[in-house]
């Protein structure tokens, strides 16, 4: 009883000084306002692009991939939200304890009678409430989809509840990582990679022909299934269970375990925490066994995998897999862009250290030099993460009958675009590191800003075309759709709408061939090479000058 009363005290937000302080400092200044503005801006772009695309496809009679405008708008909105949450939440919360350490406030915090659970809970609730505010601000655009039809209030609520649960899980994950990490950069990176992996894991779920209990374990499969009313129930022991119920329970259990286990390295756990952690850990493993092994894997093995490859003439499960992998790798590209320049800085330091007596690495111990080297490898590790699923997907496509119905050259072009974006991200990062060698904040702003412009710029003519055509339709092939293929942002919308796009059936290309993604990929690779050569010459000049 005493333990329950203590636990209630620890979890009561009113008694949590960290939550109060986090909210006070986060709500002050223009940062939160700018974050909401950015979030809303991205949502608006996604909505506008989708609207234009959906309108174009409807108008030109190629509406096989869309059912209803409202539904399509809502799906792209919620998918965009899921991906943005995935990137934003770890960045907001991974500094929980590492920032305290870096600002030399951790010791004073640890000296207070705050328990580990109280500290982790306070640190988790702050960013969670901020992220929830972002979700709440997405309600007006979601409501506009309601008015267009094709989506129900229940779907909107279920999607938002799912995203809120994932936000809580990502926050707890980032806080736990932060308690175990030495630096904020490392904690943010680990949080981002884990969150993106969660996103990509949705691709595996897509192998299943219908909803499985594990559908609730990744944000994209959650919203994907919720948005298809016929896929809400998963088969389990001969009964139909709403797939999100065991999934939500598992998400909550995992969050609780992370909060209990995370801060044990910093604060000695109380006896009732240890007992509760064991209980929650056991329950999590049991639930995971039920959801993954019993409820899902059984279904997958009995029919799922075979069914995915079987039906010729339909895109089926593999297409969904392709779409999800492609989407996830696009998000990986963005995450890589965020960190590519720190890797670039790492490379720069190594080059300086090798080439100069008075290099940036001067005075660093071998361990630190190793850390710099590891940092330099991060973008390439991400590139590996991006390329491997692509190769697997292509292999699977070539082996299966899907080859006859899908657009393999289009997919190759697609991965060329992604690789080009990644290389571009790296060289932009290197350029920024050369320009401001000592100021990491400036490097990041420069690198990410340039990249965002590059990724989004083709969306601008695309939007112009879309709105122009809405008023004056003329051509047989919608140039707006054509233009979207050359834009990573446009591609993202296509995936969100229909999985892997079949460019031929959409009438995109020249003489029946899929050239657009190839051209776009080539353009990105060429731009990356040009920028790389420029940076290398800049670096050589700099080295000679010193």
């Amino acid at each position, binding site marked *: 009883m005493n333990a329950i009363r203590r636990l209630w005290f620890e979890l009561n937000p009113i*008694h949590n*000084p*960290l939550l*109060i*302080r986090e909210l*006070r*400092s986060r709500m*002050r*200044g223009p940062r939160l306002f700018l974050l909401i503005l950015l979030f809303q801006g991205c949502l608006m772009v996604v909505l506008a692009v989708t609207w234009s695309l959906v309108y174009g496809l409807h108008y030109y009679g190629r509406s096989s991939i869309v059912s209803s405008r409202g539904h399509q708008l809502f799906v792209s909105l919620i998918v965009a939200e899921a991906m943005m949450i995935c990137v934003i939440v770890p960045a907001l919360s991974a500094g929980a304890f590492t920032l305290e*350490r870096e*600002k*030399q*406030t*951790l*010791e*004073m*915090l*640890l*000296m*207070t*009678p*705050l328990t580990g659970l109280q500290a982790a809970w306070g640190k988790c609730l702050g960013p969670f409430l901020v992220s929830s505010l972002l979700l709440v601000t997405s309600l007006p655009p979601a409501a506009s989809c309601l008015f267009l039809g094709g989506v129900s209030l229940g779907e909107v609520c279920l999607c938002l509840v799912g995203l809120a649960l994932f936000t809580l899980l990502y926050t707890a994950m980032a806080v736990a990582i932060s308690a175990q990490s030495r630096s904020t950069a490392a904690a943010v990176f680990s949080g981002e990679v884990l969150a993106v992996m969660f996103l990509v894991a949705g691709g595996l779920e897509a192998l299943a022909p219908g909803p499985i209990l594990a559908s609730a374990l990744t944000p994209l499969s959650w919203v994907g299934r919720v948005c298809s009313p016929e896929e809400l129930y998963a088969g389990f022991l001969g009964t139909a269970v709403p797939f999100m119920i065991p999934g939500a329970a598992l998400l909550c259990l995992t969050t609780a375990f992370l909060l209990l286990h995370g801060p044990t*390295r*910093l*604060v*000695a756990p109380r006896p009732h925490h240890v007992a509760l952690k064991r209980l929650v850990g056991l329950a999590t493993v049991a639930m995971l066994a039920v959801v993954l092994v019993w409820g899902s894997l059984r279904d997958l093995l009995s029919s799922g995998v075979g069914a995915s490859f079987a039906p010729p003439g339909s895109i089926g499960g593999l297409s969904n897999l392709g779409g999800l992998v492609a989407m996830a790798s696009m998000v990986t590209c963005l995450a890589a862009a965020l960190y590519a320049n720190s890797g670039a800085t790492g490379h720069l330091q190594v080059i300086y250290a090798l080439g100069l007596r008075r290099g940036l690495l001067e005075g660093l111990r071998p361990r630190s030099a190793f850390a710099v080297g590891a940092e330099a490898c991060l973008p390439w590790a991400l590139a590996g993460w991006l390329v491997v699923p692509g190769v697997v997907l292509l292999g699977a496509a070539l082996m299966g009958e899907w080859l006859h119905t899908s657009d393999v050259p289009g997919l190759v072009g697609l991965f060329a675009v992604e690789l080009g974006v990644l290389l571009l991200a790296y060289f932009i990062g290197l350029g920024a590191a050369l320009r401001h060698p000592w100021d990491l904040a400036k490097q990041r702003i420069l690198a990410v800003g340039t990249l965002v412009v590059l990724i989004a710029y083709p969306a601008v003519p695309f939007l112009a075309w879309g709105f122009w055509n809405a008023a004056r339709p003329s051509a047989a092939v919608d140039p707006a759709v054509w233009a979207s293929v050359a834009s990573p942002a446009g591609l993202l919308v296509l995936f969100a709408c229909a999985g892997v796009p079949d460019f031929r059936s959409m009438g995109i290309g020249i003489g029946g061939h899929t050239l657009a993604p190839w051209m776009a990929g080539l353009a990105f690779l060429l731009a990356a090479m040009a920028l790389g050569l420029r940076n290398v010459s800049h670096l050589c000049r700099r080295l000679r000058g010193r």
Partner: protein
Amino acid sequence: MARLSEEPDVVLQNQLERFAHQRGDGETPMAMVECQGLRKVYRDLVAVNDLSLSIGEGEIFGFIGPNGAGKTTTIKMLVTLLRPDAGTALVDGKCVIREQEEVRKVIGYMPDFFGVYDDIKVWEYLDFFATAYRIERHRRPQIIDDVLALTDLTIKKEAFVEELSRGMKQRLCLAKTLVHDPKVLFLDEPASGLDPRARVEIRELLKELRNLGKTIFISSHILSELADFVTQVGIIEQGRLVVSGSVDDITAQLQPFKRVTVRVAGDTAPVVEVLQQVPGVRNIESEPNEVRFEFEGEDGGFAGILPALVSRGCQVTGFGEQEASLEEIFMRVTRGAVA
């Protein structure tokens, strides 16, 4: 940050029992801070080695040592932030290893380097720590006003913390250390990096705290900071406590003679002549209008020197003992090496 664990330890139990036995519980007044055989090793570096000391209630203990001597490590062990590799320490009778929570309630700790939170006002900063120390909501405003008044920061109550000057931040940190009214204060280099005025302000504040009856454990490598208000001194070098005790005791122990300065109007030769005849007087140095000498002997003999000078017609304008400064003691007992 070292992992802080609380697993029972048989060796520690034995040490604690031996400790209690040596103290003779109930017979002598309990020391507020007491440690025995403290040791901390970082890889191949022995930061603190076999450190034992005892500080009574209401004492101000000056912990002096060169940079890198092990002062901060010792303090971190005493405030439960580092687990000692050997030895044991009690604060207010509670073990720093096994009763961390209890120890943290009675101590206030001000680290040598600390940061402040962004976008937080001064009163909010103090309110944060007051809530963390579980002070009831209705008592917090009064306590915050009190500590602000004590640290002379009332005027900055609504200011943002990051806008304060270095000296003000130092005082704010001290205010934060006081919100839960701790019995013992551990202050690690509280005046480092401050300008002379801010340093004087901190010193005045510490004197105020002494008057409030707090036991203060203060470390510094600047001796003049502590000289005029500490009651006990411990000098640490290379992780070992070289000397410990009250300033007077240590002075008597290390310097068993008195250093005396006599100021005269006119010629100093008669004074030197008289002094040469007094037993126990040695090392007489004469300068215009001033004579310095050392005296070793009974107080009665010392008391006779001034009347003897006056009776011989020496025009004495000043006669006084030159007290040994902490600085001198420090230079005498340390060898300039660091741990």
